[in-house]
């Protein structure tokens, strides 16, 4: 585990540098620990693939920990204690969120590419994609954009060489072993397999995004 400052108001706790279930569980557990047990001066935490970043108000933290030279040092100590506490915690089971996906020529912008890459026909690619249950490793890039994995190696096609200027909202894509859904129309380089009509981000609903880090996702044919 490595802890380093991400500026004077955040520290990143890095459990490793890979896409792995074990490291991601640690990252999410640490983040959830602080969301439910915030320390004075805590702002928020951001879990990622194999790290969690803790944001805080330096002046408040320093005032609350006069024994520490810096707020960064105080938060690092708090993180070390918390990491020991969560080590043996078992991740609570999450419900599996079902996401209906449309596969047709209008929605499946890169299905042909994936078929060529995999040496499979369209039905086989879609079948291979739908067979797995994916984990939401993290949310980032765009509001509500869930990075999920892991995609079957046979269809794990790399990002497009040059990104599309406009990927339609709801597009379901693959980038290597990752899969994700574009919540908004945006430029992007993921290979698009299909499209969902489910809103992955809606500022007017609460919560604004249906997925949370750690959730499981099952794609089904719409």
């Amino acid at each position, binding site marked *: 585990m490595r802890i380093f400052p991400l*500026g004077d108001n*955040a520290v990143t706790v890095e459990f490793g540098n890979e896409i792995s279930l074990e490291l991601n569980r640690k990252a999410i557990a640490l983040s959830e620990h602080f969301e439910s047990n915030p320390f004075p001066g805590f702002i*928020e935490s951001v879990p990622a693939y*194999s790290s969690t*970043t803790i*944001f805080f108000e330096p002046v408040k933290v320093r005032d609350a920990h006069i024994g520490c030279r810096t707020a*960064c040092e105080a938060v690092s100590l708090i993180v070390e204690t918390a990491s020991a506490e969560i080590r043996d915690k078992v991740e609570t089971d999450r419900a599996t969120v079902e996401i209906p996906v449309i596969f047709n020529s209008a929605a499946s912008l890169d299905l042909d590419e994936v078929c060529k890459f995999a040496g499979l026909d369209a039905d086989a690619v879609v079948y291979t994609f739908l067979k797995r249950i994916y984990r939401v490793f993290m*949310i*980032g890039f765009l509001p509500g954009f869930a990075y999920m994995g892991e995609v079957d190696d046979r269809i794990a096609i790399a990002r497009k060489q040059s990104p599309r200027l406009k990927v339609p909202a709801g597009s379901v894509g693959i980038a290597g072993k990752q899969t994700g859904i574009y919540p908004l129309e945006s430029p992007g380089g993921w290979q698009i397999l299909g499209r969902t009509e489910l809103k992955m981000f809606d*500022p007017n609903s609460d919560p604004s995004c249906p997925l949370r880090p750690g959730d499981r996702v099952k794609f089904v044919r719409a």
Partner: protein
Amino acid sequence: MSLIVRKPGILTTVQDLGRFGSRRFGINPNGTMDKAAVRAINVALGNDENAAVLEMHFPAPEIEFDLETAFGISGADFGAELDGGPIRNWSTAQAPKGTVLKFRKKALGSRAYLAVRNGLDIEPWLGSRSTNLLANAGGFGRQLAAGDVVQCRESRIDSPISIGPSFSAGYTAVPALRILPSGEYGLLTALSEQVFLSERFTLTNDSNRMGFRLKGPELHLVENKTLVSSAASFGTIQLLPDGQMIILMADHQTAGGYPRIGNIISADLPIAGQLGPGDRVTFKVVSVMEAENALAEFERELSFLKMGVRLKRDVHA
């Protein structure tokens, strides 16, 4: 009861100090680029520091006060005029109903703030009135357009307040920004580290609220490290594959996968927030202690300002 946008300016948005608590859902804080300027002018107006303001770029908007309004301008100096009469920057002023605020020329800095007594009357989204241009939510959900009407309340301040020069003292087009080294700083080659600490880097035209693209000598890491995505922050300096850097600013993405060289310290972010294309920066590494002390020093100055404003108001009450 409102402000009427007669001309929108190139990028005028409603902002406050930011939206916190939603980064783990990919919703970044947004907020003003220069928080020091906004906190100071809000304090001068007797507002909550987090009251919503307009962030303006140059060419700036033309705004009609549809009601008697106590307001203040801070941040960049765009040569504010009310019905043709000059308005002092970093000061509160009174706008009679029907007067028009214009900005004549860009003298210093890239972002000016218009604050009104009691703040702009905007419905918060996820606890903030800041505009998220990506999500089309918060504030107006977009940049302001001609004809927009921004709600605020009628207000009057009897004794105008001017903020001392300490809040804008750091403004320059060639700042030395203090940074804390981050995750991959130690992977810079010895030569690259020296270049990073001694050369000037120029903001390209591709520099905006999302981030500042820098142009300068290329930097290299000792090993080409591929990183899985992790959180990024306002002020994070990333090294791109072409050896150039980007400084992430207020509208940055919540996560990124580029090597993290360092982060601009909080006390210097307002200075960075005033930069624009063509400005040139140098970097200086400081200790966590120095970064935190600089921030504590700013907080002290702001509390002095707060005290001064309160005293002045009590004297006139």
